[in-house]
């Protein structure tokens, strides 16, 4: 019995954990119900002592068992995954399909081409390089986040419930990535949605949390409708939904890239609609920032590292289809790029630490779709993989900060935590450098590769590249704005909170350290081809995924005609932009706390932006030190006020305006649309209720009217 034959066990471990938790958890962790006012006055009220207390003062034996069991099941899955992937690597064709039995079958029916096909969807698992990457990410990052949650959720009510949902989530996520056909993938797809719903609303006594859960749910339904229709269309056209068979059919002679909108393009577009819902792309991204109402480990696992990348995975999985649908691919690229820059611009002005990260996630997912859209599927998966490390790390780090500050999430009431939370700081710094794209760290490799592919691929364009580049700059800026506001400068919280701020227990910091190591090192398996100093072993990621992306690779083969100089130039440009972003953030947020002290008396007319202050400093110095004439001084200050200020203010205003605009778009148009839908449903349901008067005469009248209409149909034929 090898690990490859046991891949069906991988999802089952967390399922077992979830079943134990959900059915027996209450008996294991009897303290819990106080959080839900099951028995008022019994047990400690968790709200009273908040999050800020370290240690496990009242961790009963049952709770310890939960803490062992739930991360343990994920660890088992991880071990089995590693074993299976190791064996997979030794297989010549690097694909292992394990079909347990036929799930839906027995119905021969006519496909669109008129041939008889036998309906088949299996309860089967497919381990190939793509799903191998995914299961390692899901179980690896999932395990670390589970461990972290032991510390983070230790004092919260519903401990067992939390872990039960988390394990259930891991189960469904593994089903999603291990499925060998679209129908089974859809099982996982809906399942993770359900778990996400339950976990976003975990703090249901907060109204915002349960509203957020609902919003996520409704928005995702739109995507799901697209997915179902796409899947039905696939059944209709190919007569199968098994990945291998669909790809084989697509590789056949009957299909060529569609010049305009054809069956394949529509099918791909429908699937992509599904992906926009799950992976939070424009215009369906609105649910993700609100989803931050859930506990932070949930945000890290579900809304950063795994579930939201399911759409990217699905598109990459369907690369054979998408590469035959250039029109849809263009839409994917444009939506991805637009989402990336839109979300990044919003992230610039957010004050809630988790929301910054949430918009950042949306933006990075946009990158991944951008890569998919230009046909660089392996790069999308590469970015998905590196992103899982540093975004999970950043979320967990943010969680550690929030934990230390007793639940505070507003960065305006943070600052100066560098010394208090050293581990958190240094690990988060690694994550921020990684996401900003500093050479040598994971994010650099994947992001740079995306930008290069966008520029050089035949489906890419310079415009998309510029958008990606600007987004990269914004990313570096907002991440370091976050870092500086949180960890540097003077503490801005009240003394009590500051006094209680403390580093998190090892159970939380060790996962941070592991993820930080990943954020630094994970990228070294996808080193640019340009860096010829490194042997091919450093480029193993692309080769690893090659068997899955055959068709796409064939299409992208002509990407190499650009010269090395251009590539170096672009790489330099992206690094420069990243450094520039960090520098601007540093000027804006790091130097500001010192400057006011030094210039308190000499510069009364300070303006809002740091850059502006710096100019004012020069001008005022010139005026006072050199003793220039009042007229000259006035002229200079006029110049200062009108031109410099104006320019700076104008830029700042523009930036703020665009992000305000996008927030406005969010609140009014997209939220509005969601609300409109539910409002419309209620409005439409009103007349139905109106007719349901309760008078049997009225019912009979409607009955007769129905009869008359049916008779009338005779003349309507």
């Amino acid at each position: 019995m090898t690990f490859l034959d046991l891949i069906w066990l991988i999802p089952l471990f967390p399922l077992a954990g979830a079943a134990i938790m959900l059915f027996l958890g209450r008996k294991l962790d009897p303290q819990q119900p106080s959080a839900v006012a099951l028995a008022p006055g019994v047990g400690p009220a968790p709200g009273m002592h908040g999050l800020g207390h370290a240690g496990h003062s009242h961790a009963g034996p049952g709770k310890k068992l939960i803490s062992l069991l739930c991360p343990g099941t994920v660890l088992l899955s991880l071990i089995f995954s590693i074993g299976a992937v190791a064996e997979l690597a030794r297989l010549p064709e690097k694909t292992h399909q394990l079909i347990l039995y036929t799930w839906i079958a027995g119905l021969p029916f006519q496909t669109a081409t008129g041939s008889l096909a036998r309906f088949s969807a299996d309860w089967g698992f497919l381990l190939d390089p793509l799903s191998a990457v995914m299961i390692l990410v899901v179980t690896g990052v999932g395990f670390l986040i589970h461990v972290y949650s032991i510390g983070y959720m230790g004092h919260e009510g519903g401990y067992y419930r939390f872990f039960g949902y988390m394990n259930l989530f891991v189960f469904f996520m593994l089903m999603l990535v291990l499925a060998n056909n679209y129908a089974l993938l859809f099982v996982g797809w809906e399942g993770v949605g359900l778990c996400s719903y339950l976990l976003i609303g975990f703090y249901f006594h907060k109204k915002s949390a349960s509203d957020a859960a609902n919003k996520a749910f409704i928005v995702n339904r739109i995507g799901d409708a697209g997915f179902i229709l796409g899947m039905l269309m696939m059944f209709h056209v190919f007569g199968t939904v098994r990945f291998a068979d669909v790809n084989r059919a697509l590789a056949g002679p009957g299909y060529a890239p569609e010049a305009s909108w054809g069956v394949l393009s529509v099918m791909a577009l429908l699937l992509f609609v599904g992906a926009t819902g799950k992976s939070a792309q424009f215009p369906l991204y609105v649910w993700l920032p609100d989803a931050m109402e859930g506990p932070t480990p949930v945000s890290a696992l579900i809304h950063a590292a795994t579930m939201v990348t399911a759409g990217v995975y699905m598109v990459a999985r369907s690369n054979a289809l998408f590469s035959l649908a250039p029109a849809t691919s263009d839409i994917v690229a444009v939506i991805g790029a637009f989402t990336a820059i839109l979300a990044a611009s919003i992230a610039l002005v957010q004050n809630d630490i988790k929301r910054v990260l949430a918009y950042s996630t949306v933006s990075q997912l946009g990158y991944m779709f951008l890569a998919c859209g230009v046909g660089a599927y392996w790069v999308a998966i590469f970015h998905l993989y590196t992103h899982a490390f540093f975004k999970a790390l950043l979320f967990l780090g943010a969680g550690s900060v929030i934990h230390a500050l007793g639940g505070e999430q507003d960065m305006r009431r943070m600052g100066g935590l560098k010394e208090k939370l050293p581990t958190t700081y240094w690990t988060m710094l690694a994550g921020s450098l990684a996401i900003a794209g500093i050479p040598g760290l994971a994010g650099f490799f994947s992001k740079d590769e995306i930008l290069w592919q966008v520029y050089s691929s035949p489906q890419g364009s310079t415009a998309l590249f510029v958008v990606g580049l600007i987004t990269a700059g914004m990313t570096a800026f907002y991440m370091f704005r976050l870092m500086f506001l949180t960890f540097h400068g003077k503490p801005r919280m009240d003394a009590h909170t500051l006094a209680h701020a403390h580093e998190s227990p090892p159970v939380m910091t060790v996962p941070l350290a592991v993820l930080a190591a990943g954020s630094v090192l994970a990228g070294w398996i996808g080193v640019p081809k340009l860096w010829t100093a490194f042997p091919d072993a450093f480029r193993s990621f692309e080769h690893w995924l090659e068997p899955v992306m055959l068709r796409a690779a064939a299409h992208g083969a002509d990407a190499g005609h650009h010269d090395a100089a251009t590539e170096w130039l672009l790489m330099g440009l992206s690094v420069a932009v990243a450094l520039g972003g960090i520098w601007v953030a540093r000027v804006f947020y790091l130097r500001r706390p010192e400057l006011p002290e030094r210039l308190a008396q000499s510069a009364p007319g300070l303006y809002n932006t740091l850059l502006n202050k710096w100019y004012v400093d020069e001008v005022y110095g010139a005026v006072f030190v050199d003793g220039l004439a009042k007229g000259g001084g006035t002229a200079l200050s006029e110049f200062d006020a009108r031109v410099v200020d104006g320019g700076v203010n104008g830029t700042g205003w523009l930036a703020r305006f665009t992000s305000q605009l996008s927030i406005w778009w969010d609140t009014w148009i997209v939220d509005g649309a969601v609300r409109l839908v539910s409002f419309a449903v209620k409005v439409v349901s009103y007349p139905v209720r109106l007719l349901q008067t309760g008078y049997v005469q009225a019912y009979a009248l409607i009955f007769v009217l129905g009869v008359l209409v049916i008779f009338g149909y005779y003349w309507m034929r």
Partner: protein
Amino acid sequence: MLDTFFFYAFALLTLGGGILTVTRRNAVHSAMWLIVSLAGAAGLYLLQGAEFLFAVQIVLYVGGIMVLFLFVIMLVNLDEAAKMRQFNKQWWVALACVSGVGALVAYFLRQGAGAFRLARPPQGAPILEGNTERIADVLFSEYLLPFEIASVLLLVAIVGSVLMAKRKV
């Protein structure tokens, strides 16, 4: 000719009696009109040459069941119900509905009048003998099963009415 005249006469009795049954407020009056309606139906049976049915209709319905009805009505004080104001007086809506549906049904029947497989009118002198036997024959051979199910149906009706009428068990 005479047949046609009698047909319309009996049909009028049946229909008119039925309408008056549902529109009378006094329960006794309603019951009386029901008798008229049932008698009209019996007449229609007779016109069709179904003497047995005619006899059964008169004996069972008009004679037996209706008398029971009247007993019940007189035993149970229904004056209260008769005095109660009816809260729904939209008779014109009902009239419109009935006439609408009726007109449509009539239209369709008229359009496709030739569609029905009508039984041949008896040739020569009506065969009087064997009428009862033939009904029995059909009832206990071809329609044996519906006949038996109907008995179960009646049992359920009895159980239901007893159950509803019992005050407290």
